[in-house]
């Protein structure tokens, strides 16, 4: 395993080393020590490597990740895994605002709670949150799945497009054009798969979740819906 002391060698050296792995396969395990809340740790990685960050991270850890599996042994600051393309990001602790924002693919697992705007404008990513998610989560979410084992805050799924939201606990309120929908067989399978991938096996059962999605009433502007905007 390659060990990198962020406090000693600095962010630029870390990310340069990780970016240089593109196309290589001989250094597949990395650990980053002394992250001390630094920003943009392991941002822009594009290689099938395993990176373990031993501590909490600042903004945009694993931003735009492709292929890599990144484990954060602490909590993550705002925008963790923003615009992720593929790969997996697993956070042992909590995640701050905008976790997984605009993510296009891959899997984001938050074992603690996620703050506001989790999954905002997501475009294909899957997000599993073992705890609760904050207000305005999944705002304008376009596609992908969000699985919440705990509760959701206000205005869940406001102005939602085609993303699917599964919540096990309570939802404080739904945002504009977000409604509860029927759980069909295919949805139970999606939830089952997300529980397994999200390291939440045994923590919950698919039948405990409710599904939320777009009513599709705001897809084309209509003056009679003006109060919803």
């Amino acid at each position, binding site marked *: 395993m390659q060990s990198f002391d962020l406090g000693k060698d600095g*962010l*630029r050296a870390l*990310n*340069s080393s990780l*970016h240089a792995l593109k196309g290589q396969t001989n250094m597949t395990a990395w650990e980053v020590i002394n992250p001390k809340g630094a*920003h*943009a740790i392991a*941002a*822009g990685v*594009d290689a099938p490597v395993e990176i373990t960050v031993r501590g909490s991270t*600042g*903004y*945009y850890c694993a*931003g*735009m990740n*492709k292929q890599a599996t990144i484990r954060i042994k602490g909590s993550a600051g*705002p*925008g963790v895994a*923003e*615009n992720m*393309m593929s790969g997996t990001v697993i956070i042992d602790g909590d995640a701050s*605002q*905008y976790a997984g*924002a*605009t993510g*296009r693919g891959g899997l984001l697992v938050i074992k603690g709670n996620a703050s506001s*705007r989790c999954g*905002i*404008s997501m*475009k*294909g990513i899957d997000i599993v949150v073992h705890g609760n998610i904050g207000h305005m989560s999944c*705002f*304008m979410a*376009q*596609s992908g799945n969000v699985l919440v084992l705990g509760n959701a805050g206000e205005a869940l799924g406001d*102005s939602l*497009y*085609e993303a699917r939201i599964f919540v096990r606990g309570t939802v404080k309120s739904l945002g504009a054009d977000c409604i509860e929908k029927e759980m069909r067989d295919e949805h139970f399978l999606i939830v089952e798969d997300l529980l397994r991938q999200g390291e939440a096996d045994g923590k919950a059962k698919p039948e405990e979740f409710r599904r939320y999605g777009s009513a599709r009433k705001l*897809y*084309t*502007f209509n*003056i*009679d819906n003006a109060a919803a905007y």
Partner: protein
Amino acid sequence: MTEFPKTPPRYSATFTPAVNAEIRRAAATGIYDIRGGGTKRHLPHFDDLLFLGASISRYPLEGYREKCATDVWLGTRFATKPIHLDIPITIAGMSFGALSGPAKEALGRGASAAGTSTTTGDGGMTEEERGHSKTLVYQYLPSRYGMNPDDLRRADAIEIVVGQGAKPGGGGMLLGQKISDRVANMRNLPKGIDQRSACRHPDWTGPDDLEIKILELREITNWEKPIYIKVGGARPYYDTALAVKAGADVVVLDGMQGGTAATQDVFIEHVGMPILACIPQAVKALQDLGMHRKVQLIVSGGIRSGADVAKAMALGADAVSIGTAALIALGDNDPKWEAEYQALGTTADAYDDWHEGRDPAGITTQDPELAARFDPVLGGRRLKNYLKVMTLEAQTIARACGKNHLHNLEPEDLCSLTIEAAAMAGVPLAGTNWIPGRTGF
């Protein structure tokens, strides 16, 4: 029976026929008017400034003989690979989606042939424009439609869009009529539905966050790419200062004459400031911070000619950007399509329903038949010609002012024709030394 003189019909200056027509249209349809382009109202503009030219105290350069350089470096503050352009006239961001693929190709062809850059837009980077643009600026927008790290790294610079002059504080809406399979696929949305572009970025909220976002973008692109920040003309002094604080290499400032693909007419006409009022404020912010010419300033909004270019640069800009003018150079609103404009209820040079996707010139459309009318090679040649003419015009004026580089133009070379322009531009009213607001009253 005696006939007395009658009072002739008198139109209201408040409720004009145009105002009344809009009231009737709103009452009949229940929707506000959406259109493309920039403000159509009369505003203080570059036409209200004149160059003084050389005289006994100023020595002119010989036209066509003595060198007047036009090149510009952009991104010299932090980027390890700053951009060097032959001319200081760039092509503004216009999206694939708003424009057809061939139109984007033509912009790339024309800009590259003239030695300048073009810019992507909301919707991501297409192969047409990357392939035909020697220098391509990649817009990083709130919607993040089409955003991916590979295109980020294929770009020559990154422009973080905070706002635009046509609608500072507003997002966008690409109406369902223009959402073809390809556009829908690039934006990860179903075909045929209205696509909203958010007005705020999803993962940062203020200048302190923006500084960290810029750090992330620089890390992902190995600190090579110049980072621009584009703002609409709202509070140019503070926006410029905050952009510098956040770590911008380049500030792009777009006045309210700048165009948009589509937004509410009420937004276009009633929010923002004219570019003439914006430039001196932005330049002052850069000067106060000791960053003028170190952080470059690109201005846009109503640039039409080499005279406009020269005036913008005399006020302190490093370069300008054109959007609407570039579309007209390609063939937009050409009178040769007048019969079709008439059929759409408009006329050449007034057509602005770009959002409907029925552009007779085949530029602001995703309709394959209409788009096929447009020849990207010819369009590119026309744009190149236009850019060259603008450059020659600006050089002509600069030489007359004794300047061997467009960047040497200065406010002292200008006078104002109106009190308003004098106050906004900060140059004296012609024939006086009066700058309202600065010289005592």
